[in-house]
């Protein structure tokens, strides 16, 4: 009999505890009921790793997938040490070069995507006076941008700064993502870099 009383008492205590917790949850100051597990950071980390892979590919060539895979493995290794549970992902890469249009694309299977795109248009020649002489330049119009897509933020398009590390080419900023590049005649192909280190070939 006393055992049965104990059981009823236990049930009563538990039910009372549930009621108290429910009342407490109703009485709390409402917080935004948004569920997030650092998804923004995780997607940004994937973009960061993919961009580094593209930079390495444009600098030393080889296989874009291997470079991205290398940075991704390092990301998971460091994330593991730091206790960041970045969900495992698979990815595919695409390099497209056609008719003065270039694009590098890394697509993850969680819909995170990185595309680096540029398009060149020849715009004739220009003669510029320099140091008492004159230099003939071939003029190119360059459209250049990065696109980062993720379910968290949709699409972000950025227009990185571009320069010539060797200082032989004149790079003039026109407006968002549009540049005029003057390559001295005699230089077959000039290589510019953006602020992340992506190498951009300008020339025929």
């Amino acid at each position, binding site marked *: 009999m006393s055992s049965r009383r104990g059981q009823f008492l236990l049930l009563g205590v538990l039910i009372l505890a549930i009621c108290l917790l429910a009342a407490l949850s109703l009485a709390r100051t409402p*917080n935004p009921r*948004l569920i*997030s597990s650092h998804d*923004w*950071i995780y997607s*940004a980390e994937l973009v960061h790793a993919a961009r*580094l892979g593209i*930079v390495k590919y444009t600098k030393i060539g080889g296989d874009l997938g291997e470079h991205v895979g290398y*940075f991704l493995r390092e990301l998971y290794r460091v994330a593991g040490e730091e206790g960041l549970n970045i969900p495992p992902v698979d990815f595919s890469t695409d390099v497209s070069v056609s008719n003065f249009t270039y694009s590098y694309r890394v697509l993850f299977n969680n819909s995170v995507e990185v595309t680096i795109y540029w398009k060149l248009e020849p715009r004739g020649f220009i003669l510029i006076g320099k140091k008492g002489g004159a230099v003939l330049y071939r003029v190119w119009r360059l459209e250049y941008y990065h696109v980062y897509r993720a379910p968290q933020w949709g699409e972000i398009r950025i227009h990185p700064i571009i320069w010539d590390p060797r200082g032989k080419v004149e790079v003039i900023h026109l407006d968002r993502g549009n540049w005029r590049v003057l390559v001295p005649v005699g230089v077959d192909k000039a290589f510019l870099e953006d602020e992340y280190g992506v190498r951009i070939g300008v020339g025929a």
Partner: protein
Amino acid sequence: MRIIEALLISIVLILFMYSATTLTIRTPMSGHEITAERALAWLLLRSDSIAYDESRLVLVIANMTPVGYVKVDDNVHHIEASTYTYPIRLIWLGFNGTLAPRRVEVGVKP
């Protein structure tokens, strides 16, 4: 009869544990924590090199969102006193195509 009692007690116990868990451990992230996370994700998207200029990184983060501290690898930079902070961790893998991992932890203030 005893089986039914045991079953009922188990159900009530599970309900109790679930409600206690949802109220304490699984409390959703607050709005300002999500705001800070978005800002830090944007910083990671926008710059590969900022984590390698520690003072600039700390300055930028401190101006972006209310933070108690910024920890870059093992160096802790105290920004503002706070009794409680939410730690948000980021990893900068490298810059200019090279690998040089840098671990950054930001203590976001409530």
